[in-house]
């Protein structure tokens, strides 16, 4: 029998769905059926978050993807497909899976879910470290920078500064030594592309860093990875040691005389450390508090030496650009935003996961193409929240706006690092704004007072509104305070933190007014304003609420309206989440 390959998604998402049990079962079953020659490969996550994905590549059937695989299914797959080359249709990936990947253009994610991230051979076979070789053996540092400038690549962490220009500015600095920092402190809630790249294709990031080091004239790099990503840290450690063993990192790389070392720094849990000057302070072992810029890190960065800080996704693009050329990369995307961008789709949307598309794709195409529309048929998508706590909401009537670095700014949001949370009519926009303010006021480093005190005050006012004690003058107060905070804060955390409030006020003012004037939450989310009563006009007597109630506080019989026992009810909202008809008010 010729060789069969079996790929099993082993990223954080796959593992949380039980991928390791599936893997074990495959091992067991293959040896039981005498098929040891098959190759079992643990890959990173492919980006489609729907339980365990397994791919079987068989000479007779080609490649077939199976979804929702559990250990119980494995013997049948091995018997029928691996042994006899017969596709088991009932488990194969469904239309939603195909829709999710159709229309994607995968550059950064191209190896995620395809290769074994813990085996450097797997990376090398797929043109790995070819770009580094091409750069250090055949190009001057200036040529490398020129190629990156030609590509139009802009920082993927959110700010969108042209990468080639940053490198050029750093190269021009006389001061030595210089440093390359990879910002893997993916703190934006709602963004998880960097985690997936680090878990699924860590060598691409290392290769990008080494190329950056060559370009700016640096021999030392740091990866600052957040502690909340233990698997990414483990895989980075493995990748760094394998790259050293194979001579792609360390002294005298590929015999060229160029040396580049990489150290891994674990973050200790502070959102503000995603800000570059705070990140530098943290690597130096201090509290992560931002400093005023200028001087910029390219002038005075780590240990006061010239430093470039690039995001994971930015660096993962670099090897591909060097291999295929800047012009090719620049042919993708829009005039001012070149290339592709990975978006993290989550929230009230049918397909969640990572989607990589050319910049300039409209919100609607993203949501209804790969996203597959609303999560529940009865619900309507009313807005998206993009760009994390610094970003804003975009309402449905603006969904034809292209997503790139500049277009969303006019609407009050930013593309940011690409976290895209989908909101439907069961999401309360006031509560969402309150959530972001509780996040940013928690994470404010406390150095400058507009951010430290201003955000707290905004949060207090929002808490007052969601608890039913809001007054009309509060809205004006929020708007004024937001402006002051944005104008006077030291770093982008404070400068952008009021955005979620301002955009929800701009597009969903009527929700604020409903809370304040009518003491009503239109999305049925704010507990203080809910009566926990069944609206019999909306109730379809389906009984889902009764099944979801953890306290058995809902009485229901077939053909009858549900009834909530107020004595037993703990107001946990499980029933509201379960109800498709928003019948609990």
């Amino acid at each position: 029998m010729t060789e069969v390959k079996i790929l099993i998604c082993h990223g954080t998402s796959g593992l949380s769905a039980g991928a390791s049990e599936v893997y074990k079962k495959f091992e067991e079953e293959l040896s039981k059926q005498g098929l040891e020659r098959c190759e079992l490969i643990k890959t990173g996550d492919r980006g489609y978050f729907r339980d365990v994905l397994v791919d079987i590549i068989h000479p007779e059937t080609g490649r077939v993807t199976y979804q929702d695989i559990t250990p119980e299914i494995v013997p049948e797959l091995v018997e029928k497909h691996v042994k006899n080359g017969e596709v088991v249709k009932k488990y194969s990936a469904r239309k939603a899976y195909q829709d999710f990947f159709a229309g994607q253009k995968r550059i950064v994610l191209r190896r995620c879910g395809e290769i074994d991230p813990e085996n450097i051979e797997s990376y090398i076979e797929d043109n790995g470290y070819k770009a580094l070789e091409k750069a250090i053996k055949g190009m001057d540092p200036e040529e490398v920078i020129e190629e990156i400038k030609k590509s139009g690549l802009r920082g993927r962490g959110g700010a969108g500064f042209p990468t080639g220009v940053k490198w050029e500015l750093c190269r021009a600095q006389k001061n030595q030594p210089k440093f390359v920092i990879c910002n893997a402190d993916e703190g934006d809630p709602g963004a998880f592309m960097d985690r997936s790249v680090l878990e699924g294709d860590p060598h691409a990031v290392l290769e990008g860093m080494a190329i950056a080091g060559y370009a700016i004239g640096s021999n030392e790099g740091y990866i600052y990875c957040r502690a909340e990503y233990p698997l990414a840290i483990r895989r980075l450690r493995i990748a760094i040691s394998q790259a050293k063993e194979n001579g792609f990192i360390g002294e005298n790389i590929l015999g060229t005389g160029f040396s580049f070392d990489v150290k891994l720094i674990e973050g200790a849990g502070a959102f503000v450390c995603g800000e570059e000057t705070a990140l530098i302070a943290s690597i130096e072992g201090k509290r992560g508090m931002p400093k005023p810029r200028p001087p910029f890190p390219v002038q005075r960065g780590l240990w006061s030496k010239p430093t470039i800080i690039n995001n994971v996704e930015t660096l993962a693009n670099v090897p591909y650009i060097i291999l295929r050329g800047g012009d090719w990369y620049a042919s993708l995307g829009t005039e001012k935003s070149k290339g592709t961008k990975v978006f993290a789709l989550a929230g009230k949307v049918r397909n969640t996961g990572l989607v990589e598309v050319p910049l300039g794709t409209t919100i609607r195409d993203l949501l209804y193409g790969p996203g597959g529309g609303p999560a529940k048929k009865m619900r309507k998508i009313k807005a998206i929240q993009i760009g994390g706590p610094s970003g804003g909401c975009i309402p449905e009537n603006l969904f034809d706006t292209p997503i790139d670095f500049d277009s969303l700014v006019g609407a009050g949001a930013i593309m940011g690092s690409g976290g895209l949370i989908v909101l439907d009519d069961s999401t309360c926009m006031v509560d969402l704004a309150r959530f972001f303010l509780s996040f940013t006021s928690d994470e404010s480093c406390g150095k400058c007072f507009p951010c430290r005190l201003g955000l707290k005050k905004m949060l207090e006012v929002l808490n007052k509104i969601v608890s039913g004690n809001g007054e009309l003058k509060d809205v004006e107060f929020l708007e004024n305070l937001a402006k002051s905070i944005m104008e006077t804060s030291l770093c982008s955390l404070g400068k952008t933190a009021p955005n979620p409030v301002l955009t929800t006020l701009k597009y969903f003012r009527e929700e604020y007014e409903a809370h304040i004037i009518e003491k009503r939450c239109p999305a049925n989310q704010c507990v203080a304003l809910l009566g926990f009563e069944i609206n019999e006009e909306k109730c379809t007597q389906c009984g889902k609420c009764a099944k979801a109630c953890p306290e058995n506080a809902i009485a229901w019989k077939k053909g009858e309206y549900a009834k909530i026992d107020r004595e037993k009810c703990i107001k946990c909202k499980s029933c509201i989440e379960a109800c498709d008809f928003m019948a609990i008010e």
Partner: protein
Amino acid sequence: MIEVVAEILENFKGEVSLIKILQEIQNNLGYVPKEAVDEISRATGISPSQIYGILTFYSQFRLTPPGEHTLKICLGTACHIMGGHEIFEHLKSKFRIMDNETTEDGLFTLSKVRCLGCCGMAPVIMIDEDIHGRMDIQKTEKLVRKYGGYRHETV
């Protein structure tokens, strides 16, 4: 305990990053006790106030011993709108503890966490190193019981 701290300090001689030293101590002891702070201060000359400055700035560090299991409830954006907050509130009231506290029987330390990067599976809970996605209150109850939770209820 002091021996462990002294050994770590010896291994880290010349290390400039206080964060790294503190991380290593927490990895070994599960938290950073007061005695360790005094020892670091004595060995490095860094004042205890500076050390506490670091310890309280970064959310990773604990000043009290953790429970047998750490239960982290993700409260990122996706988890918030998918019901993570309700799970968190529910557990707080069931365990009768607040954020970052440990249950009376020492079994669980409950804390909120700002985004575990599994937004596609929201809402998400992490027990020790294992992530559980698409949770609700009922599934959480089951999970907690699997780890031996709510023993006080049967007493």
